[in-house]
């Protein structure tokens, strides 16, 4: 499965990549197709370029570290492609 990291930037605006997942690494659970970008829609730009959307799966250990309630439980969230960087598999 493809490993990705959510960009850790904190720009202003109507961003739907939750702050608690920024900078975290997960795997793509499935690709969902292309959707209108909420960062443009929120400001009335209805014809902007569409963005690919993915369901990304994170482990609780990755998100909360030692404070995780149960490290192997997971969180799946929908993240737009322009918020994801590929993470190469380290051999």
């Amino acid at each position, binding site marked *: 499965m493809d490993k990705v990291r959510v960009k850790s930037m904190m720009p202003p605006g109507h961003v739907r990549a*939750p702050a*608690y997942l920024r900078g975290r690494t997960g795997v793509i659970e499935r690709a969902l197709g292309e959707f209108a970008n909420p960062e443009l829609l929120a400001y009335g730009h209805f014809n902007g370029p569409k963005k690919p959307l993915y369901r990304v799966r994170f482990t609780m250990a990755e998100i909360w570290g030692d404070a995780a309630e149960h490290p192997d439980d997971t969180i799946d*969230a929908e993240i737009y492609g322009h918020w994801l960087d590929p993470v190469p598999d380290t051999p």
Partner: protein
Amino acid sequence: MPHDHHDHDHDHDDFHHHGMSPSGHPYRADNDEPLSYWQVMEIAVRELLIEKGHVTPAEIAAQIEAMDARSPANGAAVVARAWTDPAFKQRLLADASAASAEMGFDIGGLRLIAVENTGDVHNVIVCTLCSCYPRNLLGLPPDWYKTRAYRSRTVREPRKVLAEFGLDLPDTTQVRVHDSTADMRYIVLPARPAGTEGMSEEDLAALVTRDSMIGTGLPKTP
């Protein structure tokens, strides 16, 4: 029982003296406060749409009625079908929007994903950013679903939250939290309870609770 107030004197004349209804609760105040900015905006837009002939008041009333008529019974019917019809279950897990539309519960422009509970996996739905909810199948969300407490705690300590709902999961069960952050909506397909072999689809649907489709509960057992 909340309506038993044996320590109150329910003498008829007292209701008015104490400002209480006959059931022993305070009367709801009249909504005499000024309209909010958004209420004024809604009325203005609605009246303009009617004035310009785009919609009629009857169409607006019918739409509100249709929205209010949606209830967890829709979702329960979908779950019961999936429990009894393996081909439908496959279609539901592959494309829940299309499968629920098949049963007359169209989700409109959004996309629905069904996530299946098994012996090893328990799914629970949250929307940390707002209150996204599969209204076509479950109706309006419960108030707790929209609270900051549910939204923030379900991603941080889901097992503790589920325990507060009365659902204690063993360590061997993996909890999968689904945060509806964008264009998808989610419904949990709970596991069919044991001892329901041979039950009709309709009787099975009566076992499916709203919370079992959010993931904060399990279906009832017969």
